[in-house]
């Protein structure tokens, strides 16, 4: 009977922390307004003037000759910083060429800054431009990816690819937080994983969590079947507990103020000591129910022998408070009770 409970406990110990992270980050995604996590807070559509035709443009077919071994799926003529350029999309990536002479595009810091600012609607100043090729893969950009930092209240930074003259992404503290939440939610703790939720670690943990849920459900169903769940306080005319010593000498009369038996016995002072605080784990809160002992729970059965159960001994933390007589069951409990009383008196 108890093996399911031990299994459940061990599964929880193994994956409990990640389960907490899943629920907490999921709740964060649910509660935080998407606007706060939006990297494109200050992103604006770049105004596109008609392509400049003042100088004659080279033909795209000439560009195709430069890619004899690659599959070219598109050649796009665009207008960047007032100059016409071609972007070639092939199976090897994207490449930029100025459309007048087909020279490869390689933006200078000034141009990077200008391009970044044309996509930015905020009022921050550019404070730094740095090569950011360490994150190029993440944005499917070339190794000439630059990061343009702006001084605004969102710490906006704009990624620009110097060889395609494209604004690749806007990020800020909100989108950084979002990435952190995703990293936690996807268990994407390895830096080179990309944003992936299909890796082996998450599959193992998710499987264990599923087993945790199944074992928990089995335990709940079992308890339901055994009538161990009761809703609300048991109805009783008698609102008074009489606590007896192990030799059945009256020690104290206690008025019931709590729904649980242990809490009722420990009203205002710890008459019965526990180390687990009422989790059914330590077995220290055992008392003998003199009249009508309640149905034993799984926890009772795990901590008490059949003889003790037949005697009416139960873990008080597992049962509802009800009026009547209960007695302490051993000398240690009595010693604690007397010591406590003498201190308080």
């Amino acid at each position, binding site marked *: 009977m108890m093996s399911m409970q031990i299994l459940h*406990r061990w599964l*929880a*110990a193994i994956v*409990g*922390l990640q*389960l*907490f992270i899943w*629920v*907490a980050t*999921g*709740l964060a*995604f*649910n*509660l935080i*307004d*998407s606007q706060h996590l939006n990297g494109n807070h200050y992103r604006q559509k770049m105004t*596109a*003037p*008609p*392509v400049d*035709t003042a100088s*004659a*443009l080279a*033909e*795209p*077919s000439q560009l*195709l*000759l430069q890619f004899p071994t690659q*599959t*070219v*799926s*598109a*050649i*796009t*003529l*665009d*207008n960047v910083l007032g100059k016409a350029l071609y972007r070639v999309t092939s*199976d090897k990536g994207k490449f930029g060429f100025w459309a007048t002479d087909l020279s490869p595009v390689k933006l200078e810091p000034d141009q990077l800054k200008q391009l970044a600012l044309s996509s930015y609607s905020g009022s921050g100043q550019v404070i730094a431009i740095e090569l950011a090729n360490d994150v190029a893969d993440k944005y499917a950009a070339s190794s000439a990816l630059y990061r343009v930092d702006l001084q605004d209240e969102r710490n906006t930074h704009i990624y620009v690819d110097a060889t395609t003259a494209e604004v690749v992404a806007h990020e800020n503290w909100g989108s950084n937080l979002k990435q952190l939440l995703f990293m936690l939610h996807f268990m994407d703790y390895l830096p080179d994983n990309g944003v*992936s*939720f*299909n890796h082996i670690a*998450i*599959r193992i943990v*998710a499987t264990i969590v599923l087993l945790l849920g199944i074992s928990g459900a089995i335990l709940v169903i079992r308890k339901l079947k055994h009538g161990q769940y009761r809703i609300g306080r048991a109805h009783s005319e008698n609102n008074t507990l009489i606590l007896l010593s192990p030799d059945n000498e009256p020690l104290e009369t206690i008025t019931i103020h709590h729904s649980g038996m242990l809490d009722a016995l420990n009203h205002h002072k710890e008459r019965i000591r526990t*180390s*687990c*605080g009422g*989790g059914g*784990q*330590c*077995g*220290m809160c055992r008392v003998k129910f003199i009249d009508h002992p309640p149905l034993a729970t799984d926890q009772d059965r795990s*901590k*008490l*022998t059949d003889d003790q159960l037949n005697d009416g001994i139960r873990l008080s933390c597992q049962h509802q408070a009800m009026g009547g007589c209960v007695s302490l069951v*051993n000398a240690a409990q009595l010693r604690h009770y007397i010591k406590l009383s003498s201190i308080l008196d």
Partner: protein
Amino acid sequence: MVIMDIDFIRGKHLTHKATLTIPTDKTLISIGEVLRHFPGATRVNLYPSANEPRYQVVLADRVIFISAYNGQPVQQVTQAEAALMVNQVFNGSTNAMTAKLVTENAPSELNPRLLPVWQFSINDTVNTRLYISATSGMLVTQRHDYWRLFDIMWMLHIMDYEDREDIHNPLLSLMSLLALMTVLTGLALVFVAFANKPSERS
């Protein structure tokens, strides 16, 4: 969801686009010619359709598609051309394929912004459907039963049982809060259970 590979769900294995390349055998009409014809063009994109290379011309208020061989405008991609595209990119048999032009009321598995499209039902065991843009003639997306299953799981995941897209719904807030309390109390119990050595039966 973590078991099902996301690229598989997106149907990456269903198609291959590597064969689509701009042909170099015939002369294309000059880009200068295109720009003279459409002086307001802000962007011009040359791409290979199933029939011929085409120019996609982006104007301030609309997008126009013209043949790169003869400059003829392409109003709408024909079923025959769209079927040709499917045959070029689909990894499998298209013998039982049926086609339907969708111009409004996009099916729930398709982003309405992609309309109009030719919907090709492959009628295979996983009900694969390929969507070909009726304006550009290019493959826009592919769907199969595993995608649809994943979409149901996503609905269960975010508890938006109507539109399957609102992650900020109050039901999810409530259930997540309850779940968080459950996990925290559960963790406390685990801590208690392992912090105290089990007492012996007496």
